[in-house]
C-alpha cells in the first residue's frame, strides 16, 4: 500500500463524501451533488461506486464485488483487485460473509441482513433525464413533486405494447416522496429495495451525484391500478442449480441455437449446488 492513503482516496475527499452521505441518508432518494474525483479507471466502470466504497471501507471490513450478479466478471474482478491493493481488505464471494457489497446492476438473491451496506454503481442518476434534459428543470420537478411525466412514459409503454415494457432502471418512489432511479438493476430486483434491512448507497461518478435508501424504507415501483407492477418470470429453471425463483441469464452454448438459462447471481447458484450435491 506504499504511496497511497488507505483505500486510495485522501482524507479530505473522504470527509467531503462522508458529509454528502449523511445528507443523502437524511433525505432518502434525493440526489446529493458531490465533488467526484478522477479515479484510476474510466467513467462507466463504476467510479461512483468505487468512491463510495473507498470512503466507507474499513481495514476489518470484508468486501464483495459483483457485476451483473457475478463475482468473476471483468468489472467485479478489477474492482476487487483494486481494493485488495489499495486497502488490503479481505474479500469474499459469499453474500452472507460480506460487510460491504459493491454491485453493478443486481441485488444479490440471498436476503441481505442488518448492518450490511450495498453500494450501487449508477450511470445516470436522474430518472427524469430522458424526459427532461435540463438539470435545472429536473431539480425543480423533484422540488415540486412534479412526477406526472414519469407516469406518462410508463403509460406510453402500455399504449404501444399493451404492458409496461420498462425492464431495468425501473423508477421507484422512496418513502412516498422522491422518484429515484434504482440504477440499471432488472425490475426483478425492485421488490428487494422495499424495506430492506441493509443500507443502500448509490454513487454516480461521471454525474457526481450520490443518494441513499436507509434500512427499512418503503420503496414502491411506479405503476397503475389497472397495470400493477410485475417482475420478470421465466418458463425455465436454472440449468445448473434448478432454482425457479432467481434472475436468469440466457447463455448461448453453440451456433446451432443451443442455449441455457442460468442464475445471474453466481454465489447464490454455487451455494445451492453445494447444498444439493
Amino acid at each position, binding site marked *: 500500500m506504499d504511496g497511497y*492513503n*488507505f*483505500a486510495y482516496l485522501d*482524507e*479530505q475527499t*473522504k*470527509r*467531503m463524501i*462522508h*458529509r*454528502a*452521505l*449523511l*445528507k*443523502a*441518508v*437524511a*433525505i*432518502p432518494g*434525493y440526489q*446529493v*451533488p458531490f465533488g467526484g474525483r478522477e479515479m484510476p479507471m474510466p467513467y462507466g466502470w463504476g467510479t461512483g461506486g468505487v468512491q463510495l466504497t473507498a*470512503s*466507507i*471501507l*474499513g*481495514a476489518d471490513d470484508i468486501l464483495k464485488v459483483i457485476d451483473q450478479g457475478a463475482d468473476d466478471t471483468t468489472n467485479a474482478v478489477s474492482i476487487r483487485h483494486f481494493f485488495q491493493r489499495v486497502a488490503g481488505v479481505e474479500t469474499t464471494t459469499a453474500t452472507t460473509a460480506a460487510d460491504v457489497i459493491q454491485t453493478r446492476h443486481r441485488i444479490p438473491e440471498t436476503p441481505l441482513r442488518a448492518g450490511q451496506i450495498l453500494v450501487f454503481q449508477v450511470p445516470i442518476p436522474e430518472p427524469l433525464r430522458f424526459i427532461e434534459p435540463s438539470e435545472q428543470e429536473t*431539480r*425543480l420537478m*423533484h*422540488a*415540486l413533486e412534479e412526477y406526472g411525466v414519469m407516469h406518462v412514459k410508463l403509460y406510453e409503454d402500455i399504449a404501444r405494447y399493451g404492458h409496461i415494457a420498462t425492464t431495468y432502471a425501473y423508477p421507484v418512489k422512496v*418513502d412516498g*416522496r*422522491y422518484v429515484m432511479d434504482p440504477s440499471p438493476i432488472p425490475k426483478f430486483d425492485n421488490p428487494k429495495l422495499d*424495506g430492506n*434491512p441493509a*443500507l443502500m448507497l448509490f454513487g454516480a461518478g461521471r454525474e457526481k451525484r450520490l443518494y*441513499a*435508501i*436507509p*434500512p*427499512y*424504507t*418503503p420503496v414502491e415501483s411506479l405503476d397503475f391500478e389497472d397495470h400493477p407492477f410485475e417482475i420478470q418470470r421465466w418458463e425455465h429453471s436454472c440449468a445448473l442449480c434448478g432454482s425457479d425463483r432467481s434472475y436468469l441469464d440466457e447463455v448461448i452454448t453453440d451456433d446451432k441455437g443451443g442455449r441455457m438459462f442460468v442464475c445471474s447471481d453466481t454465489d447464490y447458484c454455487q451455494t445451492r449446488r453445494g447444498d444439493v450435491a
Partner: protein
Amino acid sequence: MTVKTEMTKDLVWPGLADPAHDSQRLFRQILGAMSEPGTLTTLALPAPPQAAPSDALGAALWGAVLTLCDLETRVWIAADLDSPALRQALTFHTGARITDDPVSADFALLTHESFDPQTPFALGSDTYPDRATTLLVVVERLANAGPSMLSGPGIETTRALDIGDSPGCRALKDRLAANRASFPRGLDMIFGCGAQLAAVPRSTRVDSREVN
C-alpha cells in the same frame, strides 16, 4: 514557561490518534446512527478536557467534529459552549472556519439549554435540501425509552428515544416533529451525551404523546 506547559497539558483537546482509520470507524458509527434514527452508539475516543464551560461537549460530539469538519466547513458555536480553548482546538485539529452567522453554518454546536427554535439555521432549499445545517446537540441523556416514538426510514416499526425533560429538550423534540411539515427542507440532528451518540434526521416522524 513550565507553568504554561502544565496548563496546556491539562487542557489538551485530543485529536484522532490514527486519522485515516479512526475517522473511518467513527464515520461508520455516525452513518449507522443517521441511517437508523434513534439507535444509540458509543464512540471510543479520548474525551475533551473537563474545563468549564466547554466540558459540556463530550467525547461523542467532539468525535463527530473531528470526523466531519475540515477547512471546507463552517461551524457555528452556541454561547454556552463557546470558549477560546474550543475555538483553538477546532481550528487546530480540523481547520474549520468558525462563523457567527447560523444560516451559513454547515454544523452547529449547541446544548439543549442553549437551543433556541428561533435561531435561523439553514434548512436548505426545495431544490437543494442538502444545503442545511447539521446540529450537534448536547442533551441531558440518551436512552431508548419514554413517550417519544420515532418512525420512518431506518426504523422497522417504531423506536423510543429519550433525550431529557428540560425545556430545551422539549423544544428540540418539537423542532424535530416540525421537520415533516417542511420536508425535504429541515434540520438533521446528532445528539451527544458523554461518549454516547444518536441521530434523528429530518425524514423521521417524531410522535410525542405525553401520557396525561
